[in-house]
């Protein structure tokens, strides 16, 4: 795994915009960078793929154990959430996608930092934008990326009914692009679709309805479960009959409190890091993470001996430093579509914590 400086394509902004990628630059700062790329060898990609499949398997087993043991309080979840999770798990509600954030230097086993299993973003740039970049820049090379076709294939199992509704905060360009891209893949799988803003969802008294007052049978929502559960319509979810994508059981995996539970169930697993709800259980430097933080929100690195500030709903995970290339900390986002590893996207930053402003950099392998 190495970082290479390369010449950007002439007029790259127009090229990526033509694909529908409108947020390549955010607040005047490059989000998409193609003046550099990451290069892997095939063995490294195989390692990432195998680790992703392994970790996903561990996560599913952990969900099953948590549900059967009723350990919802360990994840800060109340009875309402527990009932939804149990029902969706035992009903085998299928999942669409997720993204694992891994610390990987190309050699040592990848380590799971967290699993964005509910509302992962940076999907479109990983699936489409970097693929077209590869076609233009290095068509003889390969890329760990079959996200697009796996999404279409997965929709054949996940979609259905009269139509699949897609809801997001459409005033956010990244969310809108992610949601519309998924809608596109759903359409290509042969399903009727309808998009609406999350705020436009209605409640008719017995069903969630769209703007044409049609019942919402299947709803893809790019909106975290913990937010849904804290809002006024949460009371209607159990009786609504709506099938949710991602399903409620994903609440267990998108929650950082899954990290200590994974370590408890699978101690010393080579792809996991020591983690606990108590600082004193983890030696050396740790990363304190809130259960429900996103995009680096609330994450603090604590030096050895630093106890930090005791906060409720916080986990402590052993620090697995991201590899640094030319001063840039690189994070591998490894995509799972259905149950299969499907590709990666690289985010990098000057800081060791990856945030929503961290750049997306394409990759290839030879």
């Amino acid at each position, binding site marked *: 795994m190495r970082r290479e400086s390369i010449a950007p394509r002439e007029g790259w902004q127009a090229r990526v915009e033509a694909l*529908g990628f409108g947020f390549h630059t955010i607040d005047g700062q490059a989000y998409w960078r193609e003046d550099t790329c990451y290069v892997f*060898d*095939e063995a490294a990609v195989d390692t990432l*793929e*195998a*680790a992703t499949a*392994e970790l996903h*398997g*561990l996560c*599913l*087993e952990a969900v*099953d154990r948590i549900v059967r043991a009723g350990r919802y309080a360990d994840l800060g979840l109340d009875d309402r959430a527990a009932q939804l999770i149990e029902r969706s798990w035992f009903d*085998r509600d*299928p*999942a669409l996608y997720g993204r694992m954030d891994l610390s990987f230097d190309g050699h040592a086993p990848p380590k799971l930092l967290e699993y964005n299993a509910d509302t992962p973003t940076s999907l479109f740039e990983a*699936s*489409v934008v970097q693929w*077209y970049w590869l076609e233009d820049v290095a068509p*003889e*090379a*390969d890329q*760990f*990326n079959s996200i*697009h*076709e796996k999404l279409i294939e997965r929709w054949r199992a996940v979609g259905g009914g009269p139509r699949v509704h897609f809801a997001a905060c*459409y005033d*956010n360009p990244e*969310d809108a692009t992610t949601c*519309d*891209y998924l*809608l*596109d893949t759903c*359409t*290509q799988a042969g399903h009727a679709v309808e998009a609406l*803003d*999350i*705020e*436009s*969802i*209605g*409640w*008719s*008294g*017995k069903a969630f*309805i769209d*703007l044409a007052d049609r019942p919402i049978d299947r709803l893809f929502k*790019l*909106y*975290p479960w913990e*937010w849904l559960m804290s809002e*006024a*319509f949460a009371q*209607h979810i159990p009786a609504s009959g709506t099938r949710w994508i991602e399903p409620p059981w994903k609440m267990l995996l*998108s929650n950082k409190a899954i990290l200590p539970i994974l370590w408890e169930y*699978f101690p010393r697993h080579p792809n996991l890091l020591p983690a606990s709800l108590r600082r004193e259980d983890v030696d050396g430097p740790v990363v304190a993470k809130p259960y429900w933080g*996103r*995009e680096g*929100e609330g994450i603090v690195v604590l030096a050895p001996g630093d106890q930090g500030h005791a906060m409720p709903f916080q986990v402590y995970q052993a620090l697995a430093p991201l590899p640094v290339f030319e001063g840039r900390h690189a994070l591998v986002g490894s995509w799972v579509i259905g149950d*299969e590893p499907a590709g990666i996207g690289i985010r990098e930053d000057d800081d060791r914590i990856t945030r*929503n402003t961290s750049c997306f950099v394409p990759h290839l392998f030879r």
Partner: protein
Amino acid sequence: MSNKGKSTPVVKRNAAPLNPVTKYRHPSFYPEQEPLTRKRTVAITLGVLGAAAVGFATLGGKDVQRNSYNSQEDCEHDYATGQCTREQPVGGGGYSGGGYSGGYHYYGPWYRSDWRSGPIKGDPGPGRSYASGGGFTGHGPTGFDFGSRGGFGSSGRVSARGG
């Protein structure tokens, strides 16, 4: 390293599991179909994305309502045939000015409660009788069901989304 261009897709090796602890496999995640074995996308075709074709209508107000009727004939007097549905009254969250007496009612389509602020494309409106001031007399609506919009989305206004 061989050429792994799209004309010669890479075939994934069958890697042995790293750890034998992952015995559990949720049945729904393993559909009986041939798995895709390429690491690389063969072709990406985008349909609606980039064409700005994915939009959502905005009906404006968040609250909606629908008229209930004693008969399909009364409902279709106010709305077009096909816009009326026969249902059991909603148990909770709804209120009928005429009162629920059990059995079935006929309902017009949902429309914005603030329909008086002006018509919006796609909104069916309150029906002929109500719009003309016919009220509850004659063959007009006997009551209303009230629904609402906007019960989701408040967290998204103040927080970062995605992950």
